[in-house]
């Protein structure tokens, strides 16, 4: 049985609107990095939001370790072990870096303050660039720094699966590589990752498997080396002209 099992997932944002997802099947095994790829509007972020319970109208089923997630509140889903690092990072602008990371543990009951601070310090080992920014307020950080804080905060939840939404968004190529080195490192340390990414090449460079979404459906899925060669992937991003 897969750790995260998504079957025939449909989703819409309001009752009158059209389906953003039209029956998606995705599975994530323990210890994998799985990438959801596709152009903007394909439904990648919606899939992650549906897992976290943020989409009001959903159908199909999502199970984490066999436990159905539908019908649970957002906060309950987090307690079950889903940590979501959303698009745009959403680092609290008025709190410091350390405070932001600390709050990542809000889903864990019975965690002592000393223990928590020790774990926060561990995160700074994983992200040495953040050490000197420990007491900087969220709004003063750059895009790459925000992304690192957001990932560190997500890891504080000790998640069974980490949902990462567009970590490369708006980052310069060099910073993107840094971020993805960290993603690979996170997996090496045993965290399962479901990654949404528009930047297909960099995502496939770390992923074990990938799914390419187009307009709410899975177009193709498979190993990175197969997807790499598939002309459909290119077309999904750049349209027919690019392959011509």
């Amino acid at each position, binding site marked *: 049985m897969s750790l995260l099992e998504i079957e025939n997932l449909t989703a819409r*944002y*309001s009752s*009158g*609107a*059209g*389906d*953003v997802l*039209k029956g998606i099947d995705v599975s994530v095994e323990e210890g994998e990095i799985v990438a959801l790829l596709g*152009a*903007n*509007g394909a439904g990648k972020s919606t899939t992650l939001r549906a897992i976290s319970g943020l989409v009001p109208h959903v159908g199909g089923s999502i199970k984490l370790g066999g436990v159905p997630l539908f019908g649970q509140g957002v906060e309950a889903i987090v307690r079950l072990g889903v940590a979501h690092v959303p698009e745009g990072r959403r680092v609290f602008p008025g709190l410091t870096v350390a405070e932001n990371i600390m709050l990542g543990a809000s889903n864990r009951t019975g965690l002592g303050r000393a223990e928590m601070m020790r774990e926060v310090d561990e995160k700074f080992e994983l992200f040495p660039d953040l050490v000197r920014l420990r007491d900087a307020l969220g709004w003063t950080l*750059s*895009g790459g720094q925000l992304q690192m804080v957001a990932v560190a905060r997500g890891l504080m939840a000790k998640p069974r699966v980490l949902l990462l939404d*567009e970590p*490369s*968004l*708006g980052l*310069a*190529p060099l910073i*993107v*590589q840094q971020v*993805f*080195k960290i993603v*690979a490192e996170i997996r090496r340390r045993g965290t399962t990752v479901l990654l949404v990414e*528009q*930047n*297909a*090449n*960099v*995502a*496939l*460079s*770390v992923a074990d498997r990938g799914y390419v979404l187009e*307009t*709410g459906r899975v177009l193709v899925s498979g190993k990175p080396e197969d997807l790499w060669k598939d002309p459909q992937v*290119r077309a999904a*991003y*750049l*349209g*027919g*002209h*690019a392959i*011509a």
Partner: protein
Amino acid sequence: MSVNLASARLWRGFPQAILACVAVVAVAFMLPSEGYYLNILMQAVTYAIAVSGLVVVLGYCGQISIAQAAFFGLGAYGVAIGMVDYHLGFFPAWLCGIGAAGLLGVVLGLGSLRLGGHYLAMVTISFQQILTLFLTNWLEFTHGPDGIRGIPRPRLGPISFEGGHAFLALCMVTLVIVTLAVWRLKTGRLGRAMQAVRDNELAAGTCGINVFATKVIAFGLSAVLGGIGGGLFAGGFQYISPDQFSFGESIVLLTMALLGGVQSPFGSLIGTMVLIILPEWLRFLKEVYLAVYGAAVILIMVFLPDGLWGLMLERVRKRAKPILGDVPKLPLLSQTGAARTDFVLTIEGLAKHFGGLKALDGISLAVRRGSVHALIGPNGSGKSTFINVITGLYKPTAGRVVFAGQDITHVPPYERNRAGLARTFQNIRVFRGMTVLENVMVGAERPGNDVAENPAFVVERALAALDFVGLRGDAHREVGALSYGHQRYVEIARALAATPQMLLLDEPAAGLNLTEKHELGELLKRLKGHGLTILIIDHDMKLVEQVADHITVLNFGKRIADGMPKDVLNHPDVIAAYLGEPQEAAGAAS
């Protein structure tokens, strides 16, 4: 068709109003002579006039005023002081009171309406308190807490309003006229602008509406209506004192409006009648009646958001009939393009910095007249910032924007629309409280549009635009009842009805399903066929390559490619921007 439409609109409601006048005069004279009935009705009628002011400011324009009793008081004190101390006639004194209310309303509005919605609430509460202080303490002018007695009633030529019945008839006729005016306002150009402001300030601004001025006018009108009611109140009761115009009374007036329904003067009329008569019936409640008012306000907000009138309308809402007959074709090519510049939009060195972040870093771009120009780029490349600068929502850090030969770099959004720049929004911004047709009429009414001054032509133009996008059959439906894709068409129709020189489409395919995307592509091809200049921003490459003549690609706030679609989409930098750098990324994996 246009002739019929025009004349029907001009006299709309007049026959009913004349009948109503006759009826109310008859009722007024048939009442028993007992003061009790006269007083109850006098209060109800004068209050109803003031409450209809709240319909304008709160119902139509969505701004909270909590000082209606203060404006009511200004009207009343105008009549009382004018007649008793300055020996003016009733009508001149009344005008003074109304003028004072209107003037103060406009001044308060100018001071607070540029800021967020709750500022007006606070400023009006403050004003209410200050006025009460003045009425109580400025003995020489206001007679202080004892109030003013012996306010005479008017004569007008041979007609005397000195008797109770006659004066009540005057009040009731005024109420009929006010109700007619407020009802007609809702479906007129100004009223539509107010509702557009209420539903979506941003979209209203990009439809050429001066949002701030519209709010000030709405608030000023509501103050004037308060003054009209107050003046009649003073004549009706012939005695006034400061406590009749206190904060508590403002709340009573607000409750009346909310209970009846703030979307219609008929609603406010019902609300007023109910709340004047109800306490009379429920005399045992006397001690707690204000507490009941307070609780009622909460309960109405929770259970009756549209008031009693909204509830009744829901019961009797008829299926709206489609509008038949031919309408002239949409004149899509701009008629105002006197300056034959080759380019409609020219942008030079445009930059926008947020602190250290360079969201736009010196972009240059030119849109040729009659072409479809696409602006693309990965997420976070600066496209949204670009649009917000072009449409005037952000001020650029540097650079120049020239539109149709006019430098619009520092011009507010509504004036850009007036110059012929129409747009749609990524997250649909329709006016939710209005019908499909009304939404598009707001677009057609852009100042400077050829049809804007003639209501019949506005309807025709709006229908033509709806016809073009295939939604004419839905003209009378609430816009919120349409599917997401059709709401986007309403936005496009709203923009087309404004006869734009250039149409700016901000991610029109976002949120559409596959069929809808296909239909949108067909619609854009038809628009292109008519020679309309379009600047389209989208992620959907299939859509872009179908319609674009020219593509500009942004990444990290800079222009990385510009040219014909085929060249641009095969440009290595563009592929790298979208798919990432293959070799480097592969290196990162090892």
